[in-house]
């Protein structure tokens, strides 16, 4: 019987010939990633359970990115980064990317890709629900809590239930008014926030393989928003080029078999899709942008591991160039590398950075920032009564700060079009 790409990778990691959905198996983990919010409690549990002699199963396979609460005066948040630093020093963790140094990278899921940790065919666990992002590289990646991470830290192993797969095929040529964000919001509208619980989302189709890695990452990033265990896209030439430019580590390519089993298959013609939004207060509260046009806004936000990558800023800049924003607009690069690209990448001879600055945007330092609200002094944080359109991934009550704010999720094109008018606007007006 055929296997899906997810089943094949899990079988390999469990040293098995064959696995099927529903089986509980023990996996050997290739990379464990953690950050400033979940790292310190993970380390505490690991010490508690493995005792004074606690050993890390493989130091080189542990990767730590402070990224969540780092540019804040909040003392407990800063203490968390101090704890990570002490731990990294004490145990000689070379893959620690300290804030305030030139090793600092930015949001973990983007940094994992940029630093060459995402390798086709491997298994990556992280203490963050959006760890599923790495699945864009034809690998298995998923989020776990602190206890599971502590268990991995000490043993290099973890149990997982093999997920059944859902397949989403997108055919056709991507129109210039659509981005990967519109596709995943459409899926959310179709299957809702629990439509993929405990499943693997596999993306396929010529529209998907026409996308650069960053856009593919937007799709797998939001797999968790339908409750999925992982999102996955088979590696192709684009993947291999991206990976080879960043690491010489070995990897293995996997494809789903023709006769692999799926719980359900969905198929879309991208030329028929519309710019999408998720209305407050859930990522599956789908609407077309067209249907909410004119909604008054107080803030626009382009950032996060979902919508703060180079192609997101290029999309936004295309629309914002030569105009002024009508409401406060925040530009938050997902990584230091992307922040640098903003100053290099040009549209009509002008850098993205200059375009945003001239338009009156606030350009922040690379981090998670207001994507998850954060301490009171977090840049771009939602306050009472605000109505925000954002390229981030969640709009649950209070996610971006105040629970008395309302957040619309949309593509960078739709957010940019809205920023220059002050009301929700269909990007086709400017394209």
């Amino acid at each position, binding site marked *: 019987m055929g296997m899906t790409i997810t089943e094949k990778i899990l079988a390999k990691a469990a040293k098995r010939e064959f696995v099927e959905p529903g089986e509980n198996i023990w996996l050997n983990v290739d990379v464990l990633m953690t950050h400033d919010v979940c790292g310190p409690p993970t380390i505490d549990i690991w010490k508690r359970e493995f005792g004074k002699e606690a050993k890390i199963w493989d130091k080189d396979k542990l990767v730590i990115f402070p990224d969540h609460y780092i540019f804040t005066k909040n003392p407990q948040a800063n203490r968390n980064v101090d704890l990570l630093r002490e731990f990294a020093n004490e145990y000689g963790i070379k893959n620690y990317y300290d804030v305030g140094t030139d090793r600092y990278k930015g949001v973990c899921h983007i940094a994992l890709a940029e630093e060459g940790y995402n390798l086709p065919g491997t298994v990556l666990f992280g203490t963050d629900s959006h760890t599923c992002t790495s699945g864009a590289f034809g690998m298995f990646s998923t989020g776990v809590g602190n206890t599971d991470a502590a268990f991995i830290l000490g043993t290099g192993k973890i149990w997982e239930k093999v997920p059944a797969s859902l397949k989403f095929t997108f055919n056709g040529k991507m129109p210039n008014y659509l981005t990967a964000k519109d596709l995943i919001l459409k899926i959310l509208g179709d299957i809702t926030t629990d439509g993929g619980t405990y499943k693997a989302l596999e993306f396929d189709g010529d529209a998907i393989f026409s996308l650069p890695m960053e856009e593919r990452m937007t799709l797998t990033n939001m797999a968790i928003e339908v*409750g999925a265990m992982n999102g996955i896209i088979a590696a192709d030439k684009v993947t291999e080029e991206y990976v080879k430019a960043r690491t010489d580590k070995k990897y293995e390519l996997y494809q789903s078999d023709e006769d692999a089993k799926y719980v359900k298959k969905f198929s879309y013609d991208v030329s028929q899709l519309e710019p999408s939004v998720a209305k407050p207060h859930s990522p599956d509260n789908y609407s077309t942008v067209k249907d909410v046009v004119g909604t008054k806004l107080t803030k626009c936000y382009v950032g996060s591991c979902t919508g703060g990558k180079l192609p997101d800023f290029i999309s936004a800049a295309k629309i914002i160039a030569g105009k002024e924003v009508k409401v406060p607009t925040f530009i938050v690069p997902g990584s230091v590398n992307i922040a640098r690209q903003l100053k290099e990448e040009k549209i009509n001879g002008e850098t993205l950075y200059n375009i945003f600055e001239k338009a009156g945007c606030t350009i922040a330092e690379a981090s998670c920032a207001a994507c998850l609200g954060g301490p009171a002094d977090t840049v771009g944080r939602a306050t009472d009564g605000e109505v925000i359109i954002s390229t981030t991934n969640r709009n649950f009550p209070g*996610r971006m700060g105040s629970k008395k704010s309302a957040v619309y999720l949309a593509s960078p094109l739709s957010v940019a079009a809205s920023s220059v008018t002050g009301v929700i606007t269909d990007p086709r007006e400017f394209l």
Partner: protein
Amino acid sequence: MEKEIIGKAFVLGDNIDTDQIIPAEHLVYSLNDADESKKYGHFALSGVPFEQSGLPEGKIAFINGERNDSDYKVIVGGANFGCGSSREHAPFALEKAGVKAVVAESYARIFFRNAVDGGFIVPYETKEKINNKIKTNDEIVINLVENKLVNKTSGESFELKPLGDILPIIEAGNIFEYARKSGLMNE
């Protein structure tokens, strides 16, 4: 493992995400420090919009005033309980507040794993939707041997889905105890 969980129900709606269980701004507190970690109990469920806090009426505080624990021992939820971020602080906060079990139609994967592997609370799945059949403040008895929930206030009872594969982990206490017992940690 206890055979029975007895306590008052606190009823919530569908899609209770981890930001509602413990808002992100509070994640800075130590989980390890006995005093500081009480804050997680204090802020448990503080992100739930007040109108939906303690259904069917709503506007019921889960934690009263300055307290760090709750009068409610059983959370009754709907579909997709614990969706959203991977924060283990969520089941931890519920345990700190004194919650023993959550009974919901379905769970988000990471919340479910965290609840079980960390040994914080027992996450029971119901066979039917019950958060519209139980009222906040109803007296509940959960029988973990018979997988049954009895509502003492209304006299109704409901079957719960057996804990299945995860029962040995819950019985052991957490994933580490389970792994020690089954020899997985001594390799």
